[in-house]
């Protein structure tokens, strides 16, 4: 399988995934009990007013027509209007996407920067103090919910370190440093569990690589142990980790939703929970779609990365 075929296959797959997500989201949201028109008007209303609103919202149409209409609008980037506020959904989402994506991105970076080197050290120093220490920390990472890490951070850091805020979000255009400080703790809360997962994967992957014949060959060539490890081992060890790193991004995205609430940050998570409570269908749809879209996009990037580090895909042929 050549590079082009592989990428094409992955891209088609992503499109199907998105289509599936869109359909599921539509079906799921429409099966939420409770009539949004009634909810909007609240209390006692006469049937005529209710029907009028339902017609206005298109809720009286057959479901499949609603679906295709929605799909067509979706393709033009129109996610509809919020039932509550009447504002365009896309606008509301974009307004609050900043903090969520910032936290997710920084959380990911923190996880990668800590987990990959630690995993390598742990594998190289297997059964030594460095290994026990880092596997223990990683174990705690995968055993705590992100939002609770957030709560502990608020209690420990928030009370003692004044320069790091524990509430709210500062947009990046108010300065890099305030922005960075406002997302530091939430990002850490989100990144720690992800880092724990990555570190454990990196360790076991590197342990397998260390036993490979080509590593012995590299030593038999007279290369220094650092060269053997980083020139011959690293890339091989990263190949399986990269694939799983994409899939476990779900941990980061899932974590952000709850962590935002801990830190009182108005992001996608709060928007989503709020809109579920208010049965604001278009807003729920839009938010879920955006998060799913980010996830699919991130996995496409991971796929590209994977093809870059795995020559078996880049240069097909062989077995």
């Amino acid at each position, binding site marked *: 399988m050549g590079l082009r075929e592989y990428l094409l296959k992955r891209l088609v*797959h*992503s499109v*199907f*995934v998105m289509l*599936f*997500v869109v359909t*599921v*989201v539509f079906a*799921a*949201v429409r*099966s*939420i*009990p409770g009539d949004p028109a009634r909810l909007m008007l609240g209390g006692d209303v006469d049937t005529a007013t209710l029907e009028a609103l339902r017609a206005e919202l298109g809720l009286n149409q057959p479901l499949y027509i609603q679906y295709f209409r929605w799909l067509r609008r979706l393709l033009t980037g129109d996610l509809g209007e919020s039932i509550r506020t009447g504002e365009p959904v896309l606008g509301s989402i974009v307004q609050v996407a900043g903090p969520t994506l910032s936290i997710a991105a920084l959380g990911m970076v923190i996880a990668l920067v800590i987990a990959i080197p630690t995993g390598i050290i742990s594998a190289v120093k297997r059964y030594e103090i460095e290994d026990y220490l880092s596997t223990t920390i990683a*174990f*705690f990472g*995968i*055993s*705590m*919910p*992100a*939002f*609770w890490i957030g*709560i*502990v951070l*608020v*209690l420990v850091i928030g009370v003692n370190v004044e320069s790091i805020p524990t509430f709210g979000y500062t947009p990046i255009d108010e300065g890099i440093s305030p922005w960075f400080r406002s997302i530091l703790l939430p990002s850490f809360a989100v990144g720690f569990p992800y880092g724990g997962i990555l570190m*454990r*994967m990196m360790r*076991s*992957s590197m342990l*397998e690589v260390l036993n490979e014949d080509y590593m012995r060959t590299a030593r038999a060539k007279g290369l220094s142990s650092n060269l053997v490890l980083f020139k011959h081992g690293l890339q091989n060890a990263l*190949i*399986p*980790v990269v694939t*799983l790193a994409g*899939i476990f*991004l*779900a941990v980061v*995205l*899932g*974590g952000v*939703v*709850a962590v935002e*609430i*801990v830190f009182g940050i108005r992001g996608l998570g709060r928007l*989503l*929970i709020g809109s*579920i*409570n208010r049965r604001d269908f278009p807003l*729920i749809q839009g938010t*879920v779609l955006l*998060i*799913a879209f980010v*996830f*699919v996009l991130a*996995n496409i990037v991971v796929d590209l990365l994977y093809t870059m580090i795995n020559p*078996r895909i880049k240069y097909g042929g062989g077995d």
Partner: protein
Amino acid sequence: MSSRFDTEGGRIFGVRTDLVEQFVNTVRRDLKAKIGVVIVTLFLLAAIFAPELAPYDPMAQDFAPLQAPALSSETPLGTDSFGRDLLSRLMYGARISLGVGLGAVLFGAITGVLLGLVAGFYGGWVDDLLMRSVDVMWAFPWLLIAIMLVSIFGQGVWNVIIAVGFAYIDDFARITRGEVLSIREEEYMLAAESVGLGDLEIIFEEVFPNTVAPIIVQFTVLVARAMLAEATLSFLGLGVKPSTPTWGSLLGQGRDFITQAWWISILPGVLIMITVLGINLFGDALRDAFDVREVDSE
């Protein structure tokens, strides 16, 4: 040992007895495994016998609100904002948290294993259809699935179990299918077929017992993750009904009083952490015992 443990094929309920033996040996050798087993057993017992062990009714508002933990007092772990005994609430909470965790993974496992067995065994378009659907689930953040499902079906124990467990179907389907495919290549499947065993018989007699080790390992790992998921859902107010004590909901309620009464959110969090840690240790021990790889290259 009773006769049930000494069936002719060396299997208990389809599980090879050598797996049990391997596990016991690992626990004997490995300190981590011992800690895991102790924690898991302790918390399971506390959850099962909560009605007998808990000092008070978890719903009774009998005490002064927001009392700090003091081991000598009537309420050793303090009280919540309604004056309910936190120790009792945590013990009852363990029932829901562990129950939902186990139940969710059981749901995912049964569904996933069945799908995987069918897909791997029949192959062809059945395989394509099932595995493509499962692939799509892989590409979907689990929390969204759970949030959507809970908002559709409403809150409640069973709904949360299904909502959380839904995300695990693909894991089990994938493992089972992979094992089935590799086992199909082996000679004894041919032998079984030539002896004239039917499809179902082959699946249950030959295929299932061999997929058991990786499935048990995955099961354990996912129970840990399911408990974290349940906690997150409850924390977001999307879990079991807010009045029911679960570790996640206790934690969520405590958040409003974090500055006056830190213990309400810290204690349930510590319990979640210890339990999940124990289950993860247990899972690692199983993985070592059964020699299941953590990372599959390609």
